[in-house]
């Protein structure tokens, strides 16, 4: 009768393995973000054009670049889950989505607070900001679709299809917004992007990588909870839950 349990020993192993990585990734992420942010905020030279307002770059650019990477990561996981029916991949995709949405939100807000002193307005229909907004919508669509299905096996498949459709559409949307922007605007351009002194570049790169590691750590933590939530009927999860409840 317990024979069917055998192939599902896998989630338990994934749960344990993820648990081993989390402390290291977390420490690494904190160290990198502390170094990069302190360096950028205190030691990097002031930009001759933008003054100190450019220091927003150390949070904006990491968030913006990681928001897209996280989406692609989620879509790849969803694809693996859909095609090869690997449930661990489905759960990974479900774990990444909320993190990606928050990162995208951060990229949007920091972009707009940077825009206010530079462009004199909180929001411009700049190609980058607009694409980022659409990306946020896509994330929210995936998250709410996943939440709408009671049966999470189905939810993962539905959300997976949507994220793959989204990933095909992102380049098209990006291109269309770029084209549209060049038609309607033109005066507002980000300046000083050409040559960045190493004192600005190095902390920026550290922060970008730090964001990546942080997203990895958070994904793994959510992944572990997702494994537990989806395997609530398995004895090993029950034991864990009852032990936790006894505390």
């Amino acid at each position, binding site marked *: 009768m317990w024979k069917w349990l055998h192939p599902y020993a896998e989630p338990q192993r994934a749960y344990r393995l993820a648990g081993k990585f989390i402390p290291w990734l977390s420490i690494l992420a904190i160290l990198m973000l502390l170094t990069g942010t302190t360096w950028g*905020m*205190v*030691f*990097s*030279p*002031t930009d001759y054009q933008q*003054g*100190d*307002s450019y*220091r*927003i770059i150390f*949070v*904006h650019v990491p*968030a913006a670049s990681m928001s897209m990477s996280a989406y692609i990561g989620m879509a790849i996981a969803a694809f693996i889950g859909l095609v090869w029916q690997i449930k661990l991949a489905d759960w990974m995709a479900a774990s990444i989505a*909320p*993190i990606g949405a*928050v990162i995208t*939100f*951060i990229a949007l*807000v*920091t972009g707009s*607070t*940077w825009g*206010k*002193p530079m462009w004199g307005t909180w929001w411009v229909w700049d190609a980058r900001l607009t694409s980022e907004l659409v990306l946020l919508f896509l994330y929210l669509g995936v998250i709410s679709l996943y939440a709408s299905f009671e049966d999470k096996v189905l939810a993962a498949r539905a959300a997976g299809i949507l994220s793959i459709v989204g990933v095909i559409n992102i380049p098209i949307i990006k291109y269309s917004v770029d084209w549209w922007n060049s038609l309607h605007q033109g005066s507002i351009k980000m300046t000083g992007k050409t040559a960045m002194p190493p*004192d600005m570049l190095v902390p920026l790169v550290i922060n970008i990588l730090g964001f990546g590691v942080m997203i990895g750590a*958070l994904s793994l*933590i*959510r992944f*572990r*909870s997702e494994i*537990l*939530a989806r395997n*609530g009927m398995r004895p090993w*999860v*029950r034991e*864990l*839950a*009852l032990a*936790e*409840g006894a505390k």
Partner: protein
Amino acid sequence: MQAQFQSVSDFLNMGGYGFYVWLSYGVAYVSLAILIGFTLTRKGRVLKEIAAKAKREQRLAQHRSAKE
């Protein structure tokens, strides 16, 4: 490498852009903190739910076997 700011108030002022810089860092780190908070507490919530469900099912099974 040396600090670009003479004093703490200088640092907070950010060359006149303090409001924007700190606003964006504030929003970014507060939303990250909320995300991290939810992420860290999720495991506990999930386990609590599963434990509640397990207990419910135990009661149900007992009720059933008592009837038989």
